[in-house]
């Protein structure tokens, strides 16, 4: 946990871990994609379940339009999930326990939902929605909306980073205090929380996209 066992000079630990994770996941995905069966076996079934869960979630939130975002959401889900679970392997660090990684993920989500909003409503209408219904209040409302949108980036990135970093610290401290059997409980927290955080990140991205493309009548 304290620093990774694989080191490349001049490259930070979390970047090395990200590359390693990408290599493993891509090779695994390639092999899995080559050997698809009509009746799924033990390896294929979890991924089919995950796929259909993401598709159902997207269709629930956005209708048939949501299928377009399947690559994005499933990519985010796999990246965050595997990245979080990497902390369970001794000698590996989590790429997501670093603010740079989570900030990059949050920026992707932010750019995508703003792009979709602008594409759906047009730039002028999208910005007009920021200004609010009353023209007189517009100079006041515009910065307020901008702040509340910026806080979305921060809350997405800080939640993931804080949870993962905090979990790691809990296990480390438990290891110092009681180096027998108790840290297993800490590892369980890492396991459960990594799944939960991946789920929350993806769901929030879906919520943001769907709130950006929905009609602005009721505000």
């Amino acid at each position, binding site marked *: 946990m304290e620093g990774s066992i694989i080191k490349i000079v001049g490259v930070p630990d979390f970047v090395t871990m990200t590359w390693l994770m990408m290599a493993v996941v891509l090779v695994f995905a390639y092999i899995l994609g080559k050997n698809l069966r009509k009746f799924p076996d033990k390896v294929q079934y979890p991924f089919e379940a995950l796929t259909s869960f993401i598709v*159902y*979630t997207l*269709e*629930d*939130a956005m209708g048939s339009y949501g299928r377009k975002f399947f690559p994005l959401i499933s990519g985010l889900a796999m990246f965050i999930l595997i990245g979080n679970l990497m902390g369970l392997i001794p000698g590996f660090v989590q790429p997501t326990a670093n603010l740079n990684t989570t900030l990059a993920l949050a920026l992707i989500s932010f750019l995508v939902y703003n792009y979709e909003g602008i594409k759906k409503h047009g730039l002028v209408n999208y910005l007009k929605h920021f200004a609010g219904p009353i023209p007189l209040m517009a100079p*006041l*409302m515009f*910065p*307020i*909306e901008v*702040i*509340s949108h*910026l*806080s*979305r980036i*921060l*809350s997405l990135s*800080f*939640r993931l980073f804080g949870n993962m970093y905090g979990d790691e610290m809990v296990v480390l401290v438990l290891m110092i205090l009681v180096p027998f059997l108790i840290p297993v409980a800490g590892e369980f927290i890492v396991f459960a929380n990594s799944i939960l955080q991946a789920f*929350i990140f993806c*769901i*929030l991205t*879906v*919520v943001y996209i769907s*709130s950006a493309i929905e009609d602005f009548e009721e*505000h």
Partner: protein
Amino acid sequence: MGKLKDYIEKTSYMMVGVQFALSIVIGLAIGYYLDKWLKSFPLMTIFWLLMGFAAGLKNLYRELKKVAK
């Protein structure tokens, strides 16, 4: 799958608390750096701090309206 939709909507209520705090922090940060740039120390910081507070309240109001519906 109507149940999932409710769940997705309720997930966004979890954000309210964090976003309330973060809006204030972002407002403060914007004001602080504007002050550094314009060299007008207390004015912009105070104004943008209040702006951030208002952003948090507006967010809260929007979510509450969604709950009350």
